[in-house]
């Protein structure tokens, strides 16, 4: 895929070229939205909105990391979605069990190719991490999702959300610390290799 050529074509209004870019990046965009919002349906809506918005404003893309630019668009779409939720709170979309209670673990999100044991373990870990991510302040969550989940480097994240590099370093460190503290509460769920040691006191 010649990304640069596709971007130029898309900037000229070629929707097919932009759709090729969408097919390449849609999983990353969706995962970012999913981790920020914590809900699959909302993440799908935010991703769709982000791609529409990205196509309409692609002429403003002046080079650099296209993925970073897309991530900025999707985080903005997620912020919009969160603002909407604040204005009009809704009930969670997690399915109910047969008893009519909400599922503790999002098994309905699991990869169907895993064995039952793997699925159970992954579900527990994923649920624990998502729970801890949901408790992070939005600006911390955005940085940790981009850096640790999407694997973007510091400069890419800084350019994407337009904050100084030092702020990215600080937010990432504090986000990791908060996640570590939160995940201690799920110690029994985590595989032995991921168990964390107790007690970091940061002054």
């Amino acid at each position, binding site marked *: 895929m010649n990304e640069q050529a596709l971007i130029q074509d898309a900037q000229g209004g070629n929707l097919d070229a932009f759709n090729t870019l969408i097919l390449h990046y849609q999983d990353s965009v969706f*995962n970012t939205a999913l981790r920020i919002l914590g809900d699959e349906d909302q993440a*799908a809506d935010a991703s*769709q909105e982000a791609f529409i918005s990205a196509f309409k404003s692609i002429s403003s893309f002046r080079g650099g990391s296209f993925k970073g630019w897309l991530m900025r668009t999707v985080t903005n779409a997620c912020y919009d979605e969160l603002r909407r939720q604040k204005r009009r709170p809704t009930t969670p979309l997690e399915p109910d069990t047969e008893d009519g209670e909400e599922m503790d673990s999002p098994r309905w999100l699991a990869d169907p190719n895993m064995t039952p044991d793997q699925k159970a373990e992954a579900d527990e870990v994923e649920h624990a991490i998502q729970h801890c991510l949901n408790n992070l302040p939005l600006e911390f969550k955005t940085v*940790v999702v981009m850096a640790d989940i999407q694997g973007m480097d510091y400069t890419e994240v800084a350019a994407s959300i337009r904050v100084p590099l030092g702020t990215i370093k600080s937010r990432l460190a504090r986000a990791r610390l908060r996640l570590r503290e939160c995940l201690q509460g799920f110690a029994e769920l985590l595989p032995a290799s*991921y168990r964390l040691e107790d007690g970091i006191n940061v002054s």
Partner: protein
Amino acid sequence: MNQRDLELLSAYLDGQLKPSESAHLESRLNSDPQLASVLTDLRATRNLLRKLPARKAPRNFTLTRKMVGQNPPLPRAYPWFRFASALATLLLFFSFGVNTVGRQMASKAPVFGMGGGGGASEESTELFSAQEAPAAPAAATEAPILETGPMPTQMSTEAADAARIVDTPVAKNAGETENAVTADQVQSSAPLVSSTWQIALAVIAIGGMLFMVLVRQISARRWK
């Protein structure tokens, strides 16, 4: 542990420290087990996040032209047809308005004594009444005579005279004046914009609209 050390450890984990900073931190890590323990925890946390399963998008997010509001390219003449059709529609409505106002003005004209036709009409009405008035008592006085029955010839003569009153020169004048007034009214209530123009405007407006619909459909079909 302070905030500065936490940021150093986090950046060290990602290889974001300068070589000199890294060397200094590594020497501290060797001598400070608590610092080393925090680094282990942060690394475990980062690994957990990295191991988080990547979800596949539940559907393709590819865009349609409708979603982004793209319209099919239209011929260059299209805006001219649109303009002509819109202008013709406006003029058509304007012509209806002008004709309606003109008709109302014409019907109000006699009431306000406007124009010679209106004055003549009033005058003629009075004249006509004046001429008719004597005829009516004449007819009324004749009625008892008819009932009593005497002098049938006299009755018929008087009735004929009464009937002849209408043919007097004054009555003839009144009749002509009335005819003139009617002609004036007809002339003044004639539409200011002729129906030929209105039909032409309607043809342009409707034809333009039909052309635009057709062109849009053809363009959309070709675009697909």
